[in-house]
């Protein structure tokens, strides 16, 4: 079973040289720590920046320089700043190659729910609806089951949707799965030490198992 960093490490293998990538809050942020050597990606922060650098050294924080999670960050050589309308313009027009975000539920049709729980204080969708509606390629980083032990990979989402038919791939602590419309969750890889049976038991939506399922290769 993978921990959060393991999930981030596996997702980092999906990065390709030259990609523009938007990382959501939580596990997706950790992906930046595992970008493979020789792969150059540019991180987009939807509050208005391409070329997001690491956290600043203590004392170098700049209140005018934050990421979409409102954390202090730094620029890198080649950074570009712009406004929120242009930022979502580049997202909407499909210029961002890959979006990685968290989810509360994903359906076998690729629907995603990650912004609202009925009868709980709703904080808002932020940029999630814009991102999932537009990105060419969306990878969800999440736990396979929720805290109550219920599967988050469902035939249909029960929570209010963030977007429809948009998720392409899911990486959880147990598995890597591809969402194929009209088919379901196609199992691609198992986490180290996890059996197909365990993944089956944790998946409520239709799980497609074709042939031998390899174990993830981390490192």
């Amino acid at each position, binding site marked *: 079973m993978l921990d959060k960093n393991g999930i981030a490490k596996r997702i980092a293998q999906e990065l390709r040289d030259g990609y523009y990538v938007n990382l959501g809050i939580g596990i997706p942020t950790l992906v930046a720590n595992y970008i493979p050597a020789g792969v150059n990606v540019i991180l987009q922060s939807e*509050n208005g920046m391409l070329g997001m650098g690491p956290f600043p050294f203590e004392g170098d924080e700049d209140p005018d320089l934050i990421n979409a999670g409102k954390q202090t960050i730094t620029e890198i050589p080649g950074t570009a700043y712009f406004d929120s*309308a242009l930022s979502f313009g580049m997202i909407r027009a499909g210029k961002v190659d890959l979006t990685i975000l968290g989810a509360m539920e994903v359906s076998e049709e690729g629907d995603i729910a990650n912004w609202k729980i009925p009868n709980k204080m709703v904080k808002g969708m932020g940029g999630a609806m814009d991102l999932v509606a537009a990105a060419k390629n969306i990878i969800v980083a999440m736990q396979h089951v929720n805290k109550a032990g219920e599967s988050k990979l469902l035939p249909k989402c029960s929570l209010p949707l963030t977007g429809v038919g948009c998720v392409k791939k899911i990486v959880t602590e147990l598995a890597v799965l591809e969402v194929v419309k009209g088919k379901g969750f196609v199992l691609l890889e198992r986490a180290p030490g996890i059996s197909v049976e365990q993944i089956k038991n944790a998946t409520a939506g239709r799980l497609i198992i074709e042939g031998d399922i390899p174990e993830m290769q981390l490192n």
Partner: protein
Amino acid sequence: MNKVVSGADEAVRDIENGATLMLGGFGLCGIPENCIEALVRKGVSGLTCISNNAGVDDFGIGLMLKTRQVKKMISSYVGENAEFESQLLSGELEVDLVPQGTLATRCMAAKYGMPAVWVKAGFGTEVAEGKESRRFAFQGEEGHYLLETAFNADFSIVKAWKGDRFGNLVFRKTARNFNDPMAGAAKITIAEVEELVEPGEIDPDHIHIPGIFVQRIFKGNNYEKRIEQRTVRKRG
């Protein structure tokens, strides 16, 4: 031409009860601190505020929530404010949650003189309820789009790094955010700046907002620029 006013109090002098305001900033980054404080001093109420966020309890728009001056927030994310939550639950405060890109684009549309725009965000979700939708074949793909209307605000209040007497503005780093699409998106745009310079001092090629979009400008004071999430790495 002189758009310079003496300060925040003069800049917001004619903002009346029930006005609709755009307020720039993302989180606490690039918020018009001086004007918010002046609005609190002025005590206007029943305000509708279009702003990506609602501040924190003791800073930013949170200060106007505490004094119960805000009737309605139009935002994409409001999570950082306990006062907000309690007023929302008690029904004192209305909130209209809008996807962040749609929020920015509805400001931009107003500024660009367009009454509405078609966007994909929110299709198939509760954001689409009651909205016109249409299929377009666009950029090599067929998809559903929602009709989103431009905002109609009385005042737009933005914060820039530098500005001149003509109202030309320059922002700094990610403090640009919503300040840019909001500048010029309301009947009257008020800009507060850290540095007020003479026309000609800003390289014309470096101007982010041409002065035609700005009606009032002043040099702000005592910027706190509070950091919401201080994240650092260790030296060495």
